[in-house]
Each structure stands twice: as structure tokens, then as C-alpha cells.
């Protein structure tokens, strides 16, 4: 059911150190409740924070930084309380906002080094590091031009550079590929993956689920201020245990006969018509594939594929919003 915590995270957090812990967090803005009893364990690695607009993602990020005072509940970042130790937390956090937030009149070097100094770097360190990070994100000589002359992709890269200039342990990326062309998105995702090798927790908030699926190894799905699903990506995408996907092709009569015969052998969980002469069925209980193939031969249909159920993140996302999906999965 939507709004209920689907317990899948416990197994993962035991093997990977937990970095951000939210416990029963509630935040409201007047009559609008942005977070409503949000509880999640976010482990180290690249974590996707997913949810529709207004789900509470940005509010959670702000509350984690100590910028918002929750009505109730606690958030711990790296073992520090988000309210009592917000400044210490912000020293180890890098934040790349979704919105356009760069000072337009300055150039990238000045902006990134300035943000480095505000994060506690000396002028010399900040200047050296800003050049390193601008090299890392792929901003060349254009770093000396005012930011208002940059393309959207370049601005995204500068936003990333300012977020990592002080080498944060936790990186919050809000829609990092927003407004970028396909090549730019590839570069950005590649940068995110590279950074993950340096023992960082990277929380990626994005609407583009294919990107999250590609780069993240953990996902947290929020809706209406509550956690509705979380877990390691491989577990989320694995599908339900014992369920197999079978795609068959043939004429309508043969297909109907085959499905009826199949129902005698195993449980049909879901049936999807794919254009009249091809259907995909999800079946449970047919561990012996030979019987499936034998029935296909007997009924004159072709088996186009037969494999354990695999999901994509979009399906996981939709199922989570449908209220736990098929049989609560």
C-alpha cells in the first residue's frame, strides 16, 4: 500500500555503512505537509532520491542540511544531528541545486574559488582546487568568461565544480543533468560515477529514471512526504522471486489455447497483450521450463523469451505508486 514503508533496506544497511538516517521526520509549511513521518536509511554510495514534484525531496535535502527545523523527528548525517550540528554537517556536504544559482557577473574560477573559501579553504588552496575541479568537470579556457555567457550544460558543470571544490563527503545533486544535451548528460553521469570511487555518499535527485538506474546502486522513493520504497538497485530491479517472464507468439486461437493449458501447470500472475499476435505472461510455479516449451509445441506457438522477471526502474517506480504493485511487490 502506498505510503507504507516496504522493508527492504535492512539487509543492505548491515553490509554498507549508513551515512544519512532519517527517523519519523515531519516538516510542514503552514497547512502544507512536506514530510510526513519520513524514515529512511541512506547508505554510502550513489543513491537515487526519487519522487514526483512536491514529494518532499528538496525539503528532505534542506532538513538534512539543517536549514529547516523539523516539526518532529531527527536526521543524522555521518553520525551528526542535523539540528544541533548543522554547521559541521554543512562542512562535509556539497550541494548542487537544481535551480540556476550561479552569480552571473563573475567567472567560473572566481565563483568556484570563492565558494571554496567560504567552505573553509585558504585562498591558495581554493584557487588551486578550483582549477583542478574545473578541469575535472571539463570546463576549459571558458572558465575565465563571465558565467552569464555560458550554456546550460556549462552552468551545470560549474554548479558541480562548486559543490565538490571542498571535497565533501556527502554530495547532494538535485537534477544534475537538467537542461543538458545527451552528450552532456553522459559526461555528467560519468563524472558522478568517477566521484563515487572516492568513498563519497552521492545522493542524486532526478526525474530521469534511466539515469538513476544506470548510476545509482541504491534508490529511495518518496511520495507525499513518506518513504514508499527503498533498497539496493539490484534488489529493486530483480523482480519477484519465482516469477518468470514468458513471451510467446502465434495466432489468437493458439495463444488462447496455450494460456489455458499453461494455467493448468502454473499460476499466471499477469498477462500483457503486445499487439495481437504476441503476449507476455508473468508466471509463477513453472520452475521446470521444459513443460513450458512442450506446451508451446503442442499448441503451435513460438516461445520468444523465457527468463526470470526483470524490472526497470520506471516499473519499480510505477508499482511503488500503485501501492506496492502486484501482490505487494
Amino acid at each position, binding site marked *: 500500500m502506498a505510503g507504507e514503508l516496504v522493508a527492504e533496506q535492512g539487509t543492505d544497511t548491515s553490509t554498507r555503512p549508513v551515512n544519512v538516517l532519517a527517523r519519523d521526520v515531519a516538516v510542514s509549511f503552514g497547512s502544507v505537509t512536506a514530510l510526513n513521518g519520513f524514515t529512511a536509511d541512506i547508505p554510502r554510495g550513489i543513491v537515487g532520491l526519487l519522487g514526483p514534484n512536491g514529494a518532499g525531496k528538496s525539503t528532505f535535502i534542506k532538513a538534512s542540511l539543517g*536549514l529547516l527545523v523539523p516539526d518532529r523527528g531527527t536526521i543524522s548525517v555521518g553520525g551528526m544531528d542535523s539540528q544541533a550540528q548543522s554547521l559541521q554537517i554543512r562542512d562535509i556536504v556539497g550541494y548542487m541545486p537544481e535551480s540556476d544559482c550561479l552569480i552571473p557577473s563573475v567567472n567560473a574560477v572566481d565563483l568556484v574559488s*570563492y565558494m571554496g*573559501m*567560504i567552505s573553509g579553504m585558504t585562498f591558495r588552496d581554493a584557487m588551486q582546487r578550483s582549477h583542478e575541479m574545473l578541469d575535472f568537470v571539463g570546463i576549459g579556457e571558458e572558465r575565465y568568461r563571465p558565467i552569464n555567457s555560458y550554456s546550460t550544460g556549462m552552468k551545470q558543470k560549474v554548479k558541480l565544480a562548486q559543490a*565538490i571544490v571542498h571535497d565533501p563527503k556527502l554530495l547532494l545533486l538535485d537534477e544534475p543533468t537538467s537542461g543538458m544535451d545527451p552528450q552532456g548528460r553522459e559526461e555528467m553521469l560519468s563524472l558522478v560515477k568517477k566521484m563515487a570511487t572516492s568513498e563519497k555518499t552521492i545522493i542524486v535527485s532526478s526525474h530521469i529514471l534511466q539515469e538513476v538506474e544506470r548510476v545509482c546502486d541504491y534508490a529511495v522513493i518518496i511520495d507525499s512526504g513518506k518513504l514508499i520504497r527503498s533498497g539496493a538497485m539490484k534488489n529493486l530491479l530483480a523482480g519477484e522471486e519465482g516469477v518468470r517472464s514468458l513471451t510467446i507468439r502465434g495466432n489468437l486461437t493458439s495463444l488462447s489455447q496455450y494460456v489455458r493449458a499453461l494455467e493448468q501447470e502454473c499460476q499466471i500472475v499477469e498477462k500483457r497483450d503486445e499487439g495481437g499476435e504476441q503476449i507476455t505472461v508473468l508466471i509463477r510455479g513453472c520452475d521446470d521450463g521444459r513443460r513450458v516449451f512442450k506446451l508451446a509445441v503442442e499448441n503451435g506457438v513460438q516461445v520468444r523469451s523465457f527468463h526470470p522477471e526483470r524490472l526497470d526502474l520506471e516499473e519499480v517506480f510505477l508499482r511503488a505508486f500503485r501501492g506496492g504493485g502486484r501482490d505487494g511487490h
Partner: protein
Amino acid sequence: MGINPIEYRPWKGERTAQGLRRYVIARSVLRHKLKSIGVLVLLLLGILFVHATYLVLIVLIPHERLEASEIDAYLGGGAFTTFAMLLAAVVTSDLISEDVSSNSLVLYFSRALKVRDYLAGKAIGALLIMSLLCAIPPVFVATVAMATQSGGDYLYSLGVLGKTALVGALVTVFFVPFGLMISSFTRRKSYAAVGTFMSFFVLAVVAGVFMEYARSWSVISPIHSLSFLFSWVLEGDLPSYVDEAALVLFLASLIIVPAVVVYLKLTRTVVGK
């Protein structure tokens, strides 16, 4: 990404204390403002018309000691306050409005920076610029006057020099909080600059209208009230129609209320709640 992409490398340096980061902002403001043509022109005109003229006079005219009344006449004439008002309007105009319009407040406050440190950084930067017109030149002029005095009463002159420094400091501080407050109300620096200057100008006009009925209304004119303050600090007396408490209340309210308002407004903007 180039032929040979650069890998991510951790930073191994030591962080500075969190309390020192406001000075990073102050230094940035100072650097930025000292490159601004508008600020440089105002500084130049102010120094030329207010301070340099008096400096020439004081060097040329023989004087026995540094007189408080002379300094009062030099600073309290209105030109000094008007230039200070103009400079404050220009200096503070974009300090917050630019961060609001570019949304860059989020970059500041996602770091270990409190609203009060951010404001302190901006204010210190603005005060340093203001001091170039309001604090340093009067002290310099008074020092020159003392150095060229014919008499030997240096103790008295030193007292006047100290009072001059105090007056300079007060004017330096006076306009900045109000300018910051107006800057936080708008996204356009031109609106902030005009808004700051016009607010003081309107107060002066209102004071002028009501002075027709009672001279004590002159207290609500920033130019008059600062002039009264100079007389009070330098010579120890006020015109009979000026109420001391009203003067202090007016001047203090123009510093404290805007400072509180801008702090609360920014806190609300940052927290969004």
C-alpha cells in the same frame, strides 16, 4: 572531456575556522566595489568636494588648535552626509539583491555559514568602503589640522580628533543597515539604490514640510539628525528644539530596525518557512 580526462582527487588541506568565513565575504565585497566605476566616482567626488576643499582651507588658514566647531562646520554642512547617503545607496544596492536574483543564497547557506555571518560579511565589506569616505578622510583632515596648528594645546586637539573619529564611525555605520534592508527587498540593484536614497530623501522632505509647524520635526531628516549628532558629539550641545531622546531613538531605530528586518527576511528566505 579532453583527450586525457582528469580524475577526481581528494583535498588534503585544513579548513579555516567557521567564524573567519565572514571575512571572505567582506573581502569579496571590498574587491568587487573597488572595481566599480560608480563607487570610485562617488568616492572621488566626495573626497574632492567635501574633504579636499576643507583640507586646503585648513592648511592655508592659520589656526591655533583643532577646533570642534570647525570640524562640526566641516562635517555638518550637509554635503558630507549627502555624499555618504549616495555612496551607501550605491555600495549596498547589489549586496543582497544580486544574490536573491541569481538564487545564489542557496550556495552560501548550503555551506557552514549562518545568516548572521553572511550579513556580517556583507556589512563589513560595505563599512570598509564607506569608511573610505566617512571615517578615514575626516580623521586625516583633523590630523593634518592638528599637525599644522600654531598653538601648543595638543591635548584638546587630540580630544577633538577622537570625537572626529567617532563621528566618522557613526556616519560609516548609519546608512549601511538600511541599504542592506532595501537590497533584500528587491531583485534589481537599481531599484535598491534608488530605494535607499529616496527613502532618506523622502524623510528629509517630510521633515521639511512639518518643520513649518514645529522645528522639532527636523529630527526625522537624516541630514539634520546627523548634523545634530555631530554638534552633540563635537561641541556637547543641541539646539533647544531638539529632544535628545527623540534624536537617539530615531538614529538608533534607523540602524537597529533595518538590521533586524534584513536578518529575519533572509532567515525566512533561506529556510523557506
